[in-house]
């Protein structure tokens, strides 16, 4: 029992889970034995009808003391030994590992590969080969934690730390920041994609988004960086003050700073505020909060941001779309076969975050041989997962909730999923065994 650990996606995970479950079994055994004995004594030797009965004056017994000192010591040595041995293999140096630089900064992760490819909050690795992440941070302490790989290491500013693992299962895994680092510590997630060898090579050399960025006009590049570099966490586009000043109608304004001198927000001022924000703090705004971007952004990116800010003169209403991966995706779902379309929908329409394929339970029921499954609903009536049931569960999930599951699924209206999409999904679910 008590088996809630996430899926084992790295080579060392089964060994860690073996040790984890060993400790669980020992702990449960001793807890049951000791608390059972306590309850039994409390009942067996209870004070009957208000009068204390005869009790022996047993002050102790050296034999028992020796036993329950030696036995726990042996168990502890056994557990400690394996704890250290498994850790030693985790941190051992692996010769031909894929080396990736992961830089943590306040509220996002930047990854850089050896061939210069840079990604933001997302990175891919080949399955089966050891991977070494070299962690560093540009501002405060962060920590890189991939539950499925059972690895975690702090990203400490001012020094390098490293974590290494060998993925054994393809798929998409979430990674968290686990060292408190301020406002959006809980939003600092990154996605790890474990791809087969060939697909990984194609992904590694697919520099389309960088080419796209090169072809982009400065304003578009500025808008992309505004979202990617996390400016949106503190600077709004609609005039509202989050933490830093809003960018709306900022260009050309008079800016009075704490140090007493005033500037007009021209290109030079904006450029300096982006690269070295702590020199001049506008009155009324917290100092020491904005990260220093010098060395993070190249000249072209700074010009793009400045151009983007200049373009926010309130004339054209700016709809801030969050950069959705789907739009950029090369694949157009309508061209795929129903099964492939279903699989693509599963991976890109967030079904994956709640429904697993391997039978384990996340938030929703697993899709493993789900088609045709029968069972009880929350309101006690039975259900059979046929076409109408699945369609209704997508359009209006609240109607029929399977017993024991939380009604947490969002409805997928016509805007998100067309009827063909659903047909594809159903076809694909039939193949999921």
């Amino acid at each position, binding site marked *: 029992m008590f088996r809630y650990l996430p899926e084992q996606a790295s080579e060392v995970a089964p*060994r860690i889970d*073996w040790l984890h479950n060993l400790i669980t079994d020992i702990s449960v055994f001793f807890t049951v034995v000791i608390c059972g004995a306590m309850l039994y004594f409390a009942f067996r030797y209870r004070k009957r009808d208000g009068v204390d009965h005869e009790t022996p004056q047993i002050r102790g017994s050296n034999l028992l003391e020796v036993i329950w000192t030696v036995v726990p010591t042996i168990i502890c040595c056994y557990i400690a030994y394996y704890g250290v*041995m*498994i850790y030693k293999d985790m941190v*051992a*140096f692996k010769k031909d590992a894929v080396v990736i630089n992961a830089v943590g900064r306040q509220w996002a992760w930047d990854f850089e590969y050896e061939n210069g490819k840079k990604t933001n909050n997302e990175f891919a690795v080949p399955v089966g080969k050891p991977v070494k992440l*070299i962690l560093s941070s540009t501002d405060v302490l962060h920590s890189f934690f991939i539950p499925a790989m059972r690895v975690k290491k702090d990203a400490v500013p001012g*020094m*390098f730390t*490293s974590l290494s693992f060998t993925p054994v299962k393809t798929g998409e895994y979430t990674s968290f920041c686990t060292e408190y680092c301020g406002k959006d510590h809980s939003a600092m997630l990154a996605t790890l994609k474990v791809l087969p060898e060939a697909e990984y090579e194609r992904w590694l050399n697919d520099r389309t988004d960088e080419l796209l960025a090169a072809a982009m006009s400065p304003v578009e590049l500025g808008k992309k960086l505004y979202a990617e570099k996390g400016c949106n966490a503190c600077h709004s586009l609609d005039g509202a003050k989050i933490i830093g000043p809003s960018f709306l109608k900022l260009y050309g304004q008079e800016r009075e700073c704490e140090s007493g001198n005033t500037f007009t927000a021209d290109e030079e001022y904006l450029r300096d505020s982006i690269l070295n924000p702590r020199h001049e703090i506008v009155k009324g705004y917290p100092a020491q909060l904005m990260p220093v971007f010098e060395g993070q952004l190249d000249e072209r990116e700074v010009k793009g941001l400045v151009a983007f800010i200049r373009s926010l003169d309130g004339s054209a209403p700016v709809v801030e779309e969050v950069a959705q991966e789907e739009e950029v995706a090369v694949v157009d779902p309508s061209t795929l076969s129903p099964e492939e379309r279903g699989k693509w929908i599963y991976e890109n329409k967030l079904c994956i975050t709640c429904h697993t394929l391997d039978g384990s339970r996340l938030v929703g029921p697993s899709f493993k041989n789900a088609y045709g499954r029968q069972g009880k609903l929350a309101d006690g009536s039975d259900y059979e997962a046929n076409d109408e049931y699945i369609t209704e569960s997508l359009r209006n999930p609240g109607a029929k909730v399977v017993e024991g599951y939380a009604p947490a699924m969002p409805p997928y209206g016509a805007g998100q999923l067309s009827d063909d999409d659903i047909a594809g999904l159903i076809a694909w679910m039939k193949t999921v065994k």
Partner: protein
Amino acid sequence: MAHDTHDDGIYLKILVALGVLTVITVLASSKAGFADFGTWSLAVAMIIASVKAGLVAVHFMHLKTERLDTWIYVIFPVVLLVLMMAGVFIDNPFRTGTGQPDPGVEVAAVEKHDNHGHH
């Protein structure tokens, strides 16, 4: 109150000893003195300082006439201080940082590792 009255002679001897040791420690340094112990200068300086500190503690602070319980609370903090430094110094000098081959940890080949007979 039965306690031995310290005659002042002992204190004078201790004062002289401390003075001499101070002069020695100054001369034993490469900056003001002439002896250059190189990397050992820290150790030499600390030994001389500890001898001086011992003299002050035992004689001036009457540790000589103290019972065991006072001694415990003199030794224990010094042990804790050494422990704190030891803890920091088994960490900082041995950090492998970018995961270069750690001298202590042998290189694990990529292929399936024989992991001590369990699955």
